[in-house]
């Protein structure tokens, strides 16, 4: 596949055997309609794949996975047809297209799973931090208790209301960012910017207080 990535668009592999996907999707009449139907079938397959992975989230809410898969495929198709000019040919067309279907499906499942659920309040986040600090114990761990206490203070002191709201919900209370975006009338990207800025402020504030934060990175 490394070789396939270095080929020219006209040599693109098996997913566009005869003519380029983009060209076929733009064609008028039966040829274009056939290409759109073919693409929709691929998007539906990807959406079912994603919803299948998230079956447990949906089952607890009594969700209809097949209905969501069709909605996700339909929405992905509309998005793709509106963004054909953005396809740069740096991956296979199907890989590019799949990401739209997976995103639509994942967002729909997250939102369905959280339908009717309240976003947890700050109190629960403070308990999380307090528990983490209290579990620390003696010696080196006492420093961790101090760090968590300082973290809570700085979350309250140096963050703006929106930054604190997003940080507490997403980073401490595990609210999916797409669910929060829907509740706040925002977007994933805008809220992540709030989260990013909040994290940067906290890192600086804690470093100024002499804490060695290291990488602090989470495993994928």
């Amino acid at each position, binding site marked *: *596949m*490394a070789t396939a*990535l270095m080929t020219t668009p006209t040599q693109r592999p098996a997913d566009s055997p005869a003519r380029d996907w983009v060209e076929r999707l733009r064609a008028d009449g039966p040829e274009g309609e056939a290409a759109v139907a073919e693409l929709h079938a691929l998007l539906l397959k*990807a959406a079912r*794949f*994603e919803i299948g*992975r998230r079956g447990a989230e949906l089952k607890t809410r009594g969700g209809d996975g097949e209905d969501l898969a069709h909605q996700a495929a339909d929405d992905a198709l509309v998005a793709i047809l509106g963004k054909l000019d*953005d396809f740069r040919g*740096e*991956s*296979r067309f*199907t*890989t*590019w297209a*799949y*990401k739209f279907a*997976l*995103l639509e499906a*994942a967002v729909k499942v*997250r939102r369905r799973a959280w339908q009717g659920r309240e976003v947890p309040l700050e109190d629960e986040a403070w308990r*999380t*931090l307090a528990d*983490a600090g209290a*579990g*620390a114990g003696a010696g080196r761990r006492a420093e*961790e208790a101090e*760090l*968590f206490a300082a*973290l809570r203070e700085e*979350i309250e002191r140096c963050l703006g209301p929106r930054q604190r709201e997003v*940080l507490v919900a*997403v*980073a*401490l209370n595990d609210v*999916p*960012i*797409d669910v929060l975006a829907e509740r706040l009338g925002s977007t*994933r*990207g805008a809220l*992540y*910017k709030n*989260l*990013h800025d909040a*994290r940067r402020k*906290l*890192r600086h504030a*804690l470093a100024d207080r002499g804490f060695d*934060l*290291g*990488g*602090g*990175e*989470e*495993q*994928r």
Partner: protein
Amino acid sequence: MKRDRILGRVLGPAAPELTCEQCFEELDRYVELVVAGAPADERVPGMHAHLDGCPACAEDFRSLRDLVTRQED
């Protein structure tokens, strides 16, 4: 939540990272590089840090990687 995980989630990655929009734009290329065993993090700087910091984009990455891998099996 374990303490390290809490710190990781609250403080996020220390390294410069892409935005969610940039991540989505590069995701297909990045996934194909990863699946091919190519140096994806060199070719798409900031992606690894973003996936460490953004749980939703990290889930999207894993889904696309697994779907593409399955197509190739």
